[in-house]
């Protein structure tokens, strides 16, 4: 029976001995981490922003600037990609040993393509938010109209019933 036992629980469970009687006698949970932290040897950030291409050490092929024309850049990158694939095929026929540079170029283009697409995501998120807000406004307006209609109907019914009651009341009194 060569089974290993489970590791013991961490020793600071003793600090929580009187938790039921006095919740404040035990230590507080650790506060949330801000900024960068190291996990299993890798660096992570808590700031969820898409890192720019230079940060990843990749050359940026499309022009930088405040407003990028995404469709045009995506199309031109696509054409570049096709040309490079054709070049690779040619090189393999003529000088097969020089494929490495071409393969690098093709992977560079793919990285640029994916980075462009990822940078479209915040725009998509804002557009989704706008759409959701519009839907909510429409639903609220609909609800307001519904309630107004029902109230008016209720008032109408009440007035009718007053009329019927008066009629029957009068006949009852006369009896």
């Amino acid at each position, binding site marked *: 029976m060569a089974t290993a036992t489970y590791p013991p629980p961490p020793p600071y469970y003793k600090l929580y001995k009187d938790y039921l009687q006095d919740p404040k006698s035990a230590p507080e949970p650790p506060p949330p981490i801000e900024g960068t932290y190291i996990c299993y040897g890798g660096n992570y950030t808590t700031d969820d922003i898409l890192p720019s291409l230079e940060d990843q050490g990749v050359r940026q092929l499309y022009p930088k600037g405040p407003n990028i024309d995404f469709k045009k850049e995506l*199309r031109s990158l696509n054409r570049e*990609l096709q040309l490079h694939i054709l070049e690779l095929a040619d090189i393999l026929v003529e000088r097969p040993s020089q494929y490495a540079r071409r393969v690098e170029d093709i992977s560079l283009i793919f990285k640029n393509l*994916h980075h462009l697409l990822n940078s*479209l995501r915040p*725009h998509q998120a804002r557009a989704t938010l706008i759409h959701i*807000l519009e839907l909510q*406004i429409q639903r609220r307006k609909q609800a307001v109209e519904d*309630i107004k209609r029902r109230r008016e109907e209720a008032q109408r019914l009440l007035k009718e019933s007053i009329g019927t009651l008066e009629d029957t009341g009068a006949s009852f009194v006369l009896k």
Partner: protein
Amino acid sequence: MDAISQLQEKVNTIATIAFTTIGTLQRDAPPVRISPNYPEAGSGPTPAPNPNPTPTPAADSDADFAKQPKLMSAELVKAAKQFDALVAALPLSEGGEEAQLKRIAQLEAENDAVGQQLEKQLEAAERELQEVRELFGQAADHCLNLKKPE
């Protein structure tokens, strides 16, 4: 799937087709005759003991192999065209980040106003419901009281 995910899938598809094409062609390419001194691969040291069955599968696979680049490059170009079509169909509203943020603030304000109206209507409706319930209770009591003398 939303537009951007479709585009990303299409990019990955183009990459897959590209390396599959080149890999397959490299792996399955028949040998190339460089020098006229070496004999052709077909006429080897044992010159075709049974000529009938062997040439036909060889010729077939050669013909098939000649079709491969055409088929695969047609796939590649088709995928690239689909990518272009998807890019053209992107619902990219011009105006940039500031215009979107302004629109969001505007919609939030309108949402608040309509929310206030909705709350007021709800309160009024609740009050009326309460009154009607009271009146109904009173009417039911009167009914019960008046029915006794029968």
